[in-house]
């Protein structure tokens, strides 16, 4: 799992993420996030990396 910076344009990504949620109800936002997680997971692919990310995201 990468923990050093890897996002090319962090501010651009973050802003796009926030904007995508604008106007969405909490349940729509939840559904959006779920779709996004699955799409991103497919970009990662590697099982160990995915499981490490799931573990690292825990509060």
């Amino acid at each position, binding site marked *: 799992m990468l923990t050093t910076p890897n996002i090319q344009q962090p501010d651009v990504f973050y802003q796009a993420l926030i904007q995508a949620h604008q106007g969405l109800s909490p349940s729509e936002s*939840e*559904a959006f996030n*779920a*779709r996004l*997680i*699955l*799409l991103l997971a*497919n970009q990662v692919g590697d099982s160990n990396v995915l499981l490490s990310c799931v573990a690292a995201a825990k509060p």
Partner: protein
Amino acid sequence: MWALFLGQRRMLTMQTSTYQLPQFAFRTPPELGLKPSQQKRYPVVVVGGGLGGLTMACDLAHRGVEVLLIDEDDTVGVRGASSRGICYAQKSLEIFQRLGTYSRIARKGIEWSIGKTLAGNEIVYSFDLAAQSSHNVSEQPPFINLQQFYIEWFLVDRLAQLPAADVRWKTQVTRVTQNADRVLLDLECPDGAYQIEASWLVDASGIRSPIREGFGLQTNPATGEDRWCISDVRFKHKPPIERWTWVEAPFNENRAVWQHLMADDVWRLDYQMAPDSDPEYVSRTDVVSDRLRRQFGADIEFELVWVGPYSYRSHVIETMRLSRVFFLGDSAHVMSPFGARGGNSAIQDADNLGWKLAMVLKNTAPESLLDSYHAERHFAAQQNVSITNGTMRFLTPQTAMQRVFRDATIALAKRFEFAQKLVNTGRLSSPTEYPASPLHCGVGAGLNIANCALTVAGQKTNLVDQVARCGNKLVVLCLLPADQASVLAQLISHTDSVECHLLSATDWYDPQGYLAERFGISAGLIGLLRPDLHSAGTIATADLSQVLTRFSLKKDR
């Protein structure tokens, strides 16, 4: 009451049945006229004439082990007609090839390889197993659908042809005890009560096994809240011969539906019901008929063959061997029916245990070989329960968040191929592999080996038939005569429990090169093939002596 799906001895409703089932004759057992001192001890007694028990008895009899099968009923299936397993996986079909029932299954059953999963009216996932390399090596197809009682019926017929097998119908086991060298069974039949002795007992008496309960073994049972209603239907309408699963069916209030063809032109339709629905109501003929019309159209003509509401249950026994008693099939493990893992795993339990018991009874292998039955098949049971639970979570989300991810998966699957892999309406039964088996000898240990085509002495044959001809032996596969010579030299000091074959035109010719590739055999390396067509590992030729003690006793000097 919702009936439990697997191992249920009497289903709740049985509205109509168009099946004619055989009735087997009860014969007075010879023990009734004998004093205990005149009675013999059976090498193996199997209790329960269901899928697992019949496969076990047939397997042992094929291996030359005298076996007595005891069943409380006098027919196959669950009293009268039944609606139990329908899908038989390639590994099971290979086992039936060895046991001599495969050709009847192939003639009677429905071969299929295409599956589709739908949400609404859209196909969100489809597959063709015949196009997958993991399925197209074998001489058997990926799946055949057939009502379970036919599979059982063919096995009973086969047992009647095998001199080593004896079947006792209408016989109840009332008590089982064991000591260090034998198992004692109290039996009750229409002619009275009697006792028999066995060296080993296989309990295949189903979900509520009185033998398991008598020994006080725990199973950690769990019941599902999900409610389903099976409707087996014959109709003129001919849907494609494919496995269709709806994760959200518009004609079933957006709940799941299964649609699959069996023999005799009967379709298995299985509908997910609302959690609070009433089992009597959902299985009423008019209600079932309305559901069918919603699915196939108002003018559909059909005949109801069998209707049964059920709910899921799972359990895994704490140990699959208790000294001289082995637990097999539903007695040991029960899971929800997704992926056809129940029946197929019972068949594989029997396949796993048969050769081990045969080798030990024939004094060619150490008794410790039997320990691997629990290690391998308990692992398989836990894996199967875990996989079917995953399907259950997808089909019946337990929390709001599970629902959110399921909806996201379905939405993405309609647009992108990757998400189709996440749609889970059942992961079809595949042979369990045993990476952590105590019989692990080398690289690739536990891998399943498919029934590939072989040419032997100019004749086309296959791996199943050739391994069966070797009898109860570990088969060593090598590529070079030098390796074969080394193997034979190492076998001299051991009992007759290992056979060596050369993968070449002079011995076992493997036209696809499948075996050498699957095992990774090359000069100086040999593959160890178990009688159940799993690998025991690929090892350096010189290391054979070291691992042989697991499969072979040393000869007395």
